[in-house]
C-alpha cells in the first residue's frame, strides 16, 4: 500500500510531497516531549502545571521536570490511571517499554538535556 501510495504521489507530480515514517518515540525524553510537555511545561497555557501549582501551593515544583520526588512507579500510576482532567494513556500511545523510559527520564535516572 505504501508503495502504491508513493507511486500515486509521484505520478501526480506533487513536488512538495513529504511522506513521513511512522512517528514512534523511543527515548524517555521523546515520550515526555510528545505526551507530557504540552500540559506540564513552564509558563502560560499549561494546565498540568497550573493544577500542580494549586495542589501543592509551591511546596514542590509545579513543573514536572523540576520535581525530584517522582519515581518510576508514580509516573506509571499517573500515566495509566490518569488524575482529574488528565485521562489515562493507552498502550498504543505510550507502550510499556516507553513508559519505563519515561519513568526513568522523569525520575532523573537519565541525564537531563
Amino acid at each position, binding site marked *: 500500500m505504501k508503495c502504491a501510495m508513493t507511486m500515486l504521489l509521484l505520478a*501526480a*507530480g506533487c513536488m512538495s*510531497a513529504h511522506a513521513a515514517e511512522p512517528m514512534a518515540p523511543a527515548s524517555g525524553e521523546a515520550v515526555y516531549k510528545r505526551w507530557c510537555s504540552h*500540559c506540564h511545561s513552564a509558563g*502560560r497555557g*499549561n494546565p498540568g502545571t497550573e*493544577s500542580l501549582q494549586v495542589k501543592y501551593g509551591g511546596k514542590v515544583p509545579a513543573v514536572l521536570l523540576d520535581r525530584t520526588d517522582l519515581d518510576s512507579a508514580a509516573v506509571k500510576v499517573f500515566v495509566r490511571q490518569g488524575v482529574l*482532567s488528565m*485521562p489515562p494513556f493507552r498502550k498504543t500511545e505510550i507502550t510499556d517499554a516507553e513508559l519505563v523510559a519515561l519513568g526513568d527520564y522523569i525520575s532523573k535516572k537519565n541525564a537531563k538535556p
Partner: protein
Amino acid sequence: MATPPNVSNADFNKVLAAWRQTVGADWVFTSPEDVALYRDAYSPYWGEKEERVASAAVAPASVEEVQAVVRMANQYKVPLYAISTGRNLAYGGSAPVYSGSVVLDLKRMNRVLEVNQPNAYALVEPGVNYFDLHEHITKAGLDVWIDPPDPGWGSVIGNALDGGGGWTASPFRDHFGAHCGMEVVLANGEIVRTGMGALPNSKSWQHNRWGFGPWVDGLFRQGNYGVVTKMGFHLMPRPEAMQTVTVQVTREADVIPLVDTLNLLENQHVVNGSTSLGGGQPGAGGNAGATAWSASLPIYGPEKVVRAQVEYCRDKFSKIADARFTEGELFRTPLDAATLARVRKVSFGIPDLSTFGLLGRNAANPSPPGGHVDFSPILPRTGEAVLEFMRLYREKLPELSEGGALRILGPVFMTNWDRTMVALLMFPIGRDPQMNGRMRNSFRHWVELCAEHGWGEYRAPAVFQDDVAKAYSYNNHSLRRLRETIKDAVDPNGILSPGRYGVWPKHLRKV
C-alpha cells in the same frame, strides 16, 4: 476476559487468535487493566452499570490489517467501535457507544502521507493528531497552517468525523467541510475511495472533493457505515497578518444589530476569522455605559488588505449608536517566540491543550470533579435567537442547575460555523455517581427544552446520543429510518460502531 454480547467464548477466542496473527499479539488487548485504558475518563456513568465499556481492543497498523480485522469481526458478528486517537473527551473519549464492543484502535496508523504546499492540502491516517501534523509541517519547512481545535491531541480525521471545528479562518475551521477525499473500509472488508479517489491513478484526490456521481462522504461523518483509514484536508496558506477588532454595545437589545452586522461581514468574507460573542449576563447593560455584549472579529490576510477590512468593519459598526470599536494588535506572521507566549496559539494554527485549564484544577476552582461533558445546541446566527436563548437560560437555570449547585458553565456562544452559533454549556463530571446522576438529569432536560424551541445539538457525548437523535423526529423519524435502511444495506451484521449517533443495527433497535 469479557466477551462481546451474543458472541460465544469459543467464537471470540477464534477471532482474537486470528487478530493476534494479523496485528501481532502485543496489539490485541484483553486483560482488564489494558481494556480499562479505553474507558471514557469523563464518563457520566463512571463506575455504574450503565457505563459504556469495551470487552477488548485491537490495534491494526495498516489498512490491510484493518480489512483483516473487520472481515473476521463480520464473520463472527463481533461488534467493533472505531476510534482514531480516542481523545474525543467531553463527547465520549475512547469508550464504545454499545457496551461490550471491541475498540478498533487506529492510533498506530499515524503517518502523514503527504503535505502539498502549492495546492495546500494534507493526506493523513487516523492516528495523526494535530501536534503530529503541525510538527511534520514545521520540520518540512512548509508555509501552510493547520486549523487546530482546542485539544491538540485529537485526531485530525477523528475530529472531522465527529463534526469538530477549529479557530483559524473560514473555510478551514469546519473540519469536515475542509476535508477532500477519504478511504474507507466497509464492514465486508472492501476498500472504497471517495470523490476523485475512485478513479484509478487519480491525480486530483485531494484537489476536488466531489468526483462524479452521488457524494457519499457525509455518510461517514458521525456515521457507522465504514472505517475511515485515510482522509485529505485543505490547509490554509500562512496568512501574512492577523488583526482582531472588538465591538461593544451597551444595550441588551443591541445584540440584534451587532450580530446582523457581524453576519454581513462574515458572509461577505470581509471577516474570515472565528468570531465570538460575549455578554448577556443578567443585569449587564443596566448601568449607563456598561457593556451588554461584546463581539470580537479576527481577520486574516495580507497586511494591507487586513487594514482595509478593519476600516470597512469600523464603518459598518458605526451605524450602531454608541457602539465602541477597538482595533486589536496587528500580528505579522510567523510570530516570534515572545509574541507566541502571550497569544492564544490555536488562533495562529498552533495546537495546544490550554483549554483543559478551564475546567481542570486552577486557582479559581481548586477542587474540580475532574471531567466535563459538553452540551452543544445549534442556534441560528441572529441576535433574536441569542435573546430567546438567554431568556430561557435565565428562566430555567435555577431549577436545572439546582440553584447553582451543579456549577454548570456557560453559555459560551461559539461561532465556528457561519450562519449558526453554538450555545455551549459545560457540565462538570467526576467520580461521584450521585452527582453525576444529577448532571445527567439536567443534561437530558436541556436536550428536551432546546428541542421544544427548535434547537438541536450538533454533537453529543456517547451516552446522550440516543437522546439527541430522538429529538430529530420530523415526519415520524424519517431521517433515522433512512439511516437505518442504509445501515442494514452496508453493514447487515451490524458490527461497525453500533449506536453511534443514534444509528443502531436491526438486531439492537429498541423501536
